[in-house]
């Protein structure tokens, strides 16, 4: 039986209510946590090999450790529920089905880092999740899990739910902070990092919903157990959002050691109508594409990194042989051109330009130098921006063309 830490309760009716959550053992980790000093919790999380599951995959415990020691003044915890990555929809399930695990994780995390205010930044389009979450927060307040002196521990925590306005960039931690501050959702210059100077100038930890939801489980069952579920470098399980040309699209919680082939053919039921697999995007749209022959990789951060792509937000998009990769690139490019915040010049200017070139190619008006121009522009622009948005965009730009160049060239009229 595979471990289902996060999705274990999804099948229960009313799983989003405090009642059901408590019945399944919820808030147990919290009590354990309060018994420990905050630093010990951070140590525990470090030991658990929990890595950020929003996309970057940064070890969570280490991130928490960046908060300046002995800092006076407020410290904030921000939950990134701005799930905008195409092909990713795991946080929605968590918010809708199990918001209390998020709240419990938040309380533990806030306690660990010394925050007394936590923000949940919910994607603007997630109206239902937002309603459910709000309800859950109210329930938690009513039950004394939030507010003053939680469970008599003397620890205070207030939770603020903030709805985004629909900008993909606000999923980037500093962009999210800007947005949270009431400004335009522009990523901020690093350094200083948010853990040092984040929201409203205070040290801030931004974590993904899924990441935080893991924290109570670590507390409940111990870091070693958690680490043992995964690989050497990444502990625990992971929720994979599988979409596209599969028989059973959906969210699958699996150990990170699962291979992509297993995920597609066993868990998601393979491709419908017996079509052939053409390509897979393994970690949300920003991840580099994999050809059909490259799917024998483990789905952890390092495994995918070695395969030349990334785990990202674990949104697996499966494409069968009817898909036109140039068209797919055009769609992706349009997405990035549309979502670029416009702050850094390379990203602002070249996403639009690359979309125009991709569109032209798809329309049959491409020029033979366009492909190399796209590759060159993408490479030259990569790494020159404030945030990782453009680097994310560069993944598909380069991989789509490099791996399916003949498809592109077939569309370009010969001179």
């Amino acid at each position, binding site marked *: 039986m595979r471990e289902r830490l996060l999705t274990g309760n999804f099948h229960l009716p009313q799983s989003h209510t405090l009642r059901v959550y408590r019945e399944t053992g919820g808030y147990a980790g919290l009590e354990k946590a309060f018994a420990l000093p905050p630093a010990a919790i951070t140590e525990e999380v470090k030991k658990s090999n929990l890595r950020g599951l929003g996309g970057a995959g940064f070890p969570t415990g280490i991130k928490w450790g960046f908060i300046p020691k002995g800092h006076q003044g407020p410290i904030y915890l921000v939950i990134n529920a701005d799930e905008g990555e195409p092909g990713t929809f795991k946080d929605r399930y968590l918010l809708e089905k199990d918001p209390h695990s998020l709240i419990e994780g938040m309380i533990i995390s806030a306690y660990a880092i010394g925050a007394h205010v936590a923000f949940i930044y919910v994607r603007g389009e997630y109206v239902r999740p937002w309603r459910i979450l709000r309800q859950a927060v109210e329930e938690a307040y009513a039950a004394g899990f939030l507010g003053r002196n939680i469970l008599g521990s003397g620890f205070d925590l207030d939770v603020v739910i903030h709805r985004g306005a629909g900008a993909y960039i606000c999923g980037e931690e500093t962009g999210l902070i800007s947005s949270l501050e009431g400004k335009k959702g522009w990523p901020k*210059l690093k350094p200083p990092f948010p853990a040092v100077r984040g929201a409203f100038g205070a040290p801030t930890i931004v974590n993904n919903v899924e990441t935080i939801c893991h924290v109570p489980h670590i507390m409940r069952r111990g870091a070693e157990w958690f680490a043992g579920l995964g690989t050497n470098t990444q502990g625990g399980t992971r929720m994979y959002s599988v979409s596209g040309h599969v028989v059973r699209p959906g969210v699958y919680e699996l150990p990170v050691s699962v291979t992509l082939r297993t995920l597609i053919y066993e868990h998601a039921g393979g491709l419908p109508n017996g079509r052939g697999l053409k390509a897979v995007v393994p970690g949300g749209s920003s991840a580099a594409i994999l050809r059909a022959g490259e799917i024998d990789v483990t789905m952890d951060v390092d495994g995918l990194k070695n395969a030349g792509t990334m785990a990202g937000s674990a949104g697996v998009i499966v494409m069968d042989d009817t898909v036109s990769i140039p068209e797919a690139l055009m769609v992706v490019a349009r997405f990035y051109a549309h*979502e670029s*915040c*416009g702050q850094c*010049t390379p990203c*602002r*200017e070249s996403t639009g330009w690359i979309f125009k070139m991709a569109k032209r190619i798809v329309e049959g008006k491409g020029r033979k130098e366009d492909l190399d121009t796209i590759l060159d522009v993408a490479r030259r622009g990569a790494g*020159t*921006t*404030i945030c990782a948005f453009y680097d994310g965009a560069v993944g598909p730009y380069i991989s789509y063309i490099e791996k399916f160049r003949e498809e592109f060239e077939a569309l370009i009229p010969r001179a």
Partner: protein
Amino acid sequence: MPKLTIDGRESEVPEGTGVIEAARRLGIEVPHYCYHPGLSIAGQCRLCMVEIGNNPRPQIACNTQVVEGMVVRTETPKVLETRQAIMEFHLINHPLDCPVCDQAGECWLQIYYMKHGLYEPRMVDEKVHKPKAVPLGPHVILDAERCILCSRCVRFCDEITGTGELGIFQRGDHSEIGLFPGRELANPYSGNVVDICPVGALTDRDFRFAVRVWYLETAKSICPGCSRGCNIAVHSNLRRPHHDGGRRVARLKPRYHAEVNRWWICDAGRYGYKFVDDPSRVRFPTRGRGDAAAEVGWDEIVPLIAGQLRRYQPGEIGVLASPQMANEDLFLLRRLVDHLGLAHVDFRVPPSRPGDEDRILIKADKNPNRRGAELIGLGPRDGGLDARGMLRAARERRIKCLWVFHHDLLASAWPEGEIREALESLECLLFQGSNGNGVRLLAHYVLPSAAWVEREGTFTNFEGRVQRFWKAVEPLGAARADWEIVARIGEALGLSFMPDTGEDCFKALAATVPAFAGLSYRELRDTGRLVWDCAGRGPA
């Protein structure tokens, strides 16, 4: 004080300095658009990339603070390639309208393109279209297509004036600068956004299309608009007189002075030069009042005026100097006053309305040299009358001859009718000034002064800083610097001191007036010298 190495040169800079600033101090220019030393760091243009230490990727120099032992390289192949890439991105949606763009010639996009450009444009697609020629306020016009979104203007309005009229709207390559709804870029410093705009997105409505910038000549100067004494550069158009309707002074630009105005200047000062080429300028000496006025030459009028000054008793003559005059003028006038033994001397005339003032630059005193007049001592002598007293005495015909410099007494805070009566009662009214006014119409003799851009000299600002201004254009008509006119009249009256240049005057001033002791034009350089400690009310 961390030490660092930039391009192999060692340097020591204060803690917290950005790499870009450290490089600038070494004379190494790191190309940049969004960085401005007077504004917060945005890091948006991504142009100031340099290689730091062993970091595999170039970093932006503006947002990187120096640390001990840092090794920075600004000209490596990697840096150059990155710059070239960034320049290409900057130009992707930038229209190719340099020929019609007013910024052409002083445009940083042009400059860096010529230095670091790709030169082989690869962009063939339609560019993004944005609003063009949008008036943002009374002085500034926006061309959003040319904007490279460095956000300097936005930060200026947020951080310097605190008015926050501007913002960046839309997303991605549709981003554009704009006004917040219902706002207008009408703060008293709005012109500065044009200066800091590295490209032609923000242009000056006053200067628009007047002269191409490469025709302009530059002279260092001091703004005469108020007692702040902002450092400015006078841009004059001498090569294409048919441009700009024949105006010689095309525009004023602020000149950096760390302690006076930093990079800024107020709009009142920026656009306050119009009087220089105004039709109201006095061009030639005239004699005779009203319709009887006739132009005469200097050789003719100087003996006439000397004769008038000789005709009256010292007690019947009043001199009304102006704090608009330079230190040199005031000093020579004092020499003449002392020589003639006049007692009725003053320079203080209250304006009809008190001037506005703020905490940034603008001072309520709209005269550039009141402090200078005070230090040189042009107040009433023992038993002498002040300005008001002189006018009263004129009405009573005790003062028969009055020499007024620049002042428009009829527009002062004093009742106009009373002043007019006083001036009309005079037997001899001399008016000396650059532009005509009510007093000129009543004057028996009019002497044309050169405007401040037409001569050199020094002003002493409110804090007692003596600052030099240089000559930018030739005087209009027969106009001469005030000190020259005073010197010629003094010569006719037997004054022995005869300076040949403004510098001579200043030398004598430095030798005579204690506050100015030890000063010379050389000593003043570009930044001036503090001669009066305002807090201590004594020489600095």
